[in-house]
């Protein structure tokens, strides 16, 4: 079973068209192994991206280099998945 220990989901809100195009470029940058949960639409609309733990540091540095603000929507994805599974199991019982 695939696990997602340490994966984070970051929420990025582009504040102008420059940031918008920088974030659009991210979708093509395979080295970060990003999983786009909610894609780029327009400035001020959130973009949610799952980032694996092993690229998290470099990805955050990339955002910070371009002064792109982000918040952490999900701190540790696996913890949430474990909670979801526990909830399903206990409801089934």
């Amino acid at each position, binding site marked *: *079973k*695939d696990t*997602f220990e340490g994966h984070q*989901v970051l*929420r990025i809100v582009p504040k102008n068209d420059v940031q918008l195009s920088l974030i659009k470029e991210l979708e093509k940058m*395979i080295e970060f192994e990003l*999983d*786009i*949960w*909610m*894609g*780029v*639409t327009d400035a001020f609309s*959130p973009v*949610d991206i*799952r980032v694996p733990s092993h690229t998290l540091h470099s990805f955050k540095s990339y955002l910070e280099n371009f002064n792109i603000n982000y918040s952490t*929507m*999900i701190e540790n994805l696996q913890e*949430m*998945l474990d909670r*979801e599974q526990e*909830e*399903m199991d206990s*409801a*089934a*019982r």
Partner: protein
Amino acid sequence: VGQPRNTDSFDYARYHPINEIYSFQDMLVAENPNMVSKLVIGQSYEGRPLNVLKFSTGGTNRPAIWIDTGIHSREWVTQASGIWFAKKIVKDYGSDPALTAILDNMDIFLEIVTNPDGYYFTHTSNRMWRKTRKPNPGSSCIGVDPNRNWDAGFGGPGASSSPCSETYRGPRAHSEPEVKAIVDFVKSHGNIKAFISIHSYSQMLLYPYGYTTTPVKDQAELHQLAQKAISDLTSLYGTRYKYGSIINTIYQASGGTIDWTYNQGVKYSYTFELRDTGLYGFLLPANQIIPTAQETWLALMAIMDHTHKNPY
């Protein structure tokens, strides 16, 4: 142990594995033999049945409304909402005048698990799986995005040609059996008047097109109806939605489901993106299932009612 004996004791406020959804469908058919039947419109790549519930009060090849949920397997709130809609239809027929009028004149088709292989995979191996499960020759990456696999601007911008991408369009239009089954069904039925494809999560109601900026010829009517549907949806819990054409509201996406259905002549073609609390993404807690389904139902009713009252 723990298995519901009927659809009244089914737990609508939790997520269910695929075998429980199959059992739910069979129970609903058994309990409502005069209204609900199960059609198997094809098989998934891994051989699972593509079940469609047909809600009908009689007639032959009546004008019909299609609803599908779960084409992107990880969007669990959509399959869970589909289950709730199925029960809601049988519960409200005969007591809700609008739904009763619709079902007295039209059929409703509901495909709850549109991508069964993907859904099974999300429960057993990878909760984050979105695509189908067919291998791609020459690549180690599996699956196709079934919402980029339709013959509407197929291969254009807004879909990927790389099998490893989450938006991989597939080798050719309708290459995925899960997509082809719906294509064949819509064509052979020939009397589908509304087609609603349900996704999550960014709180939007969208109409065609996604592959071109050219507006559809019914844009004014579709926009007005979207406004009414969202106003009804918002009235329940205050959930705010955006609405508009796919390309203007989100981004360019080619090979999309409702672009194809619209081009086939299904005027009322819409796609939903359900509730987003801003905290969980695809992991929407199970206690959000019923509120999500309830508010979405109001919008669905607006679209179905308009379709019924505006025959074409």
